[in-house]
């Protein structure tokens, strides 16, 4: 909330309430991801790691059917962590392990935000620096693994064909938008605790550049590990060697192509009978799942192959946990600061109670994600709760400051704060470029959302093409929830605006009534 006494910015309260609802929705599902990370972290303190082996079936001769069809890591993720149902309608039961971890996560968040910025400021010293340390360790480890160079080459070679797809640019724009956590209110909340004469221009530049630099740093670490993982996947070569009884290690990855063509020409039936998949590093890296799949499936498998797996697993998941925790601080500030400012609870109620109540409310609401269909619901929230609303809020914020408040007044304020007027670049960006970009992204995103049929990919062991995920469409009521999530935060703004307008009109009516009564009285006394 912009703390200005100016009447024109009383409307800032409206954006604050909108941001409050968006932050609330985001906190719910964000902490669920943190819960999953915590679950994996708790399970990393053992050798061998639990996602490295399949459980045995009943007569101990083989592995469980579902695990044999897919990999051990997928089984651990879908069955032993999520215990996922085959469709979003089948909610299943609450997973008590996840519920316990969720409680622990919210307790940790409460511990860090208990006194507001006082405690958050101390906690963030650790949660912000620890990930960098672990990332550096992983970078060093990743670069020394075989196959890392190929991953890096893949990362840095631009694929002109992909770059021509406008969808890619839209994804990139939304990614940088959410990565900077704009419009959630966290930035404004944190910034409001700064001194009035803070050099905000330098801060803004630092934040943006540091964010992109960290992304690049992290992607180098990630892709070197992915390259390593791709290099260790040589199942095809083994199949060929076993079928044709070649000596071990006689076919290297480079010879594979030539040997395959030779065998295909001499004994095509036997080769066809092997059902070999095309073995390109590109294909593997293209098919790497995004989001939760990257961390919980691909990376966990890569960690299994590194010597000293439990150490790497502990480091990796504690890094993810601290990263998520620092993001949660921003979200919680976005919830608590508006509540404090609006004055929901009376003054004498201590801050700890407010933060405790907020955390408790979020925890109870988030228990729906611990159901067996929780991960499907998380996808719904992830794609609908935040995206459109945040872009809309950001657009209105920029337009509000540049046009309603007045760019000149804003530049005056900044001159008062930093000692110099913002240059031409800033003024042009605030006035023209940013609103235009945001509007374009919003329209494109909206068009994309309405065009693509609302479907999701379900994990169904009974599916014929298992382990591929089954494509299902959302039932009607889920679709309604999606729409509600997208619109609800944005509806705050016109809703409260309407309420304020009505209140103002009533006040004006009362004033005029009082004036006429006074006139009558005056005229009456003669």
């Amino acid at each position, binding site marked *: 909330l912009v703390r200005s006494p100016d009447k024109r910015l009383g409307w800032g309260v409206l954006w604050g309430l909108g941001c409050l609802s968006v932050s609330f929705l985001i906190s719910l599902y964000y902490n669920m991801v943190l819960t999953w990370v915590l679950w994996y972290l*708790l399970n990393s303190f053992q050798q061998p790691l639990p996602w490295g082996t399949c459980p045995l079936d009943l007569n*101990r001769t083989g592995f469980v059917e579902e695990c044999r069809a897919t990999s051990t890591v997928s089984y651990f993720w879908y069955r032993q962590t999520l215990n996922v149902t085959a469709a979003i309608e089948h909610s299943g039961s609450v997973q008590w392990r996840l519920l316990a971890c969720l409680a622990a996560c919210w*307790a940790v968040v*409460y*511990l860090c935000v*208990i006194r507001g910025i006082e405690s958050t400021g101390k906690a963030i010293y650790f949660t912000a620096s620890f990930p960098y340390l672990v990332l550096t360790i992983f970078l060093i480890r990743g670069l020394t693994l075989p196959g890392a160079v190929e991953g890096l080459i893949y990362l840095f070679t631009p694929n002109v064909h992909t770059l021509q797809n406008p969808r890619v640019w839209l994804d990139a724009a939304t990614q940088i938008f959410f990565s900077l956590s704009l419009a959630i209110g966290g930035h404004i909340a944190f910034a409001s605790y700064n001194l009035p004469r803070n050099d905000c221009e330098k801060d803004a530049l630092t934040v943006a550049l540091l964010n992109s630099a960290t992304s690049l740093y992290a992607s180098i670490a990630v892709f070197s590990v992915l390259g390593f993982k791709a290099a260790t996947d040589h199942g095809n070569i083994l199949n060929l060697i*076993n079928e044709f*009884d070649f*000596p071990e290690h006689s076919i290297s990855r480079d010879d594979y192509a030539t040997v395959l063509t030779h065998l295909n020409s001499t004994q095509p039936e036997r080769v066809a009978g092997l059902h070999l998949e095309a073995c390109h590093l590109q294909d593997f890296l293209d098919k790497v799942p995004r989001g939760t799949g990257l961390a919980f499936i691909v990376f966990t498998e890569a960690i299994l192959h590194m010597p000293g797996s439990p150490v790497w697993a502990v480091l990796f998941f504690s890094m993810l946990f601290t990263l998520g925790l620092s993001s949660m601080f921003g979200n919680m500030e976005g919830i608590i600061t508006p509540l404090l400012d609006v004055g929901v609870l009376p003054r004498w109620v201590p801050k700890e109670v407010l933060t405790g109540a907020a955390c408790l409310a979020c925890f109870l609401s988030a228990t729906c994600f611990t159901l067996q269909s929780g991960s499907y619901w998380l996808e719904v929230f992830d794609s609908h709760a935040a995206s459109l609303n945040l872009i809309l809020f950001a657009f209105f914020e920029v337009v509000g400051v540049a046009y309603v408040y007045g760019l000149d007044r804003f530049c005056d304020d900044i001159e008062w704060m930093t000692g110099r007027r913002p240059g031409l670049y800033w003024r042009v960006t605030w006035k023209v470029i940013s609103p235009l970009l945001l509007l374009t992204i919003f329209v494109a995103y909206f068009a994309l959302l309405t065009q693509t049929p609302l479907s999701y990919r379900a994990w169904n062991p009974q599916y014929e093409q298992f382990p591929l995920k089954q494509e299902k469409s959302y039932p009607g009521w889920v679709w309604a929830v999606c729409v509600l999530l997208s619109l609800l935060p944005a509806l705050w703004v016109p809703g409260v605006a309407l309420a304020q307008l009505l209140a103002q009109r009533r006040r004006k009516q009362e004033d005029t009534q009082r004036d006429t009564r006074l006139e009558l009285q005056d005229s009456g006394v003669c």
Partner: protein
Amino acid sequence: MLWLLFFLVTAIHAELCQPDAENAFKVRLSIRTALGDKAYVWDTNEEYLFKAMVAFSMRKVPNREKTEISHVVLCNVTQRVSFWFVVTDPSKNHTLPADEVQSAIRMNRNRINNAFFLNDQTLEFLKIPSTLAPPTDPSVPIWIIVFGVVFCIVIVAITLLVLSGIRQRRRKNKGPSEMDDTEDKCENTVTIENGIPCDPLDMKGGHINDTFMTEEERLTPL
């Protein structure tokens, strides 16, 4: 004559041991994968050892204590290293049933693996599933232990913070009221320092301290 017999025996053996023959098993070894630099070469001596191990396993089966090394026949040895084997009965005319061989191998799988420094994955008997080791299930899952530790620490920290917050607030509440009391007291009491009462400054009249004479008065006028 002897040569003929020898040829006959090998011929019969060859018939008994063929890829996909009845009661024949394929074995596949991955020595280089298992041992790397320390891999040994697969030669006829190793084959002899293999035959000995299979014969040993068969001798453990009741009714088959008379199995000899010569009853185990290997054939189709490839570079992979893979080969087929059968176990014949003492008459060398028939092969022993596959179930007996299978159960014998399964019972002694560990000994056979160790003889070659291999394990279940690198010494594969195709069609003979190995009994998998039961998973080591600790009585209390490890994640619960770690969870308990983390949760207890967090709860203790929260309690400490809340209690210190309450104490701070109580001190702040008492603080302003205490300050009011002392201000009232100041008006009525006389401060005592070292047993000597200090008079408040405004009670004293102006007294000139002679030691601090001004410059002009010290210097005698010209």
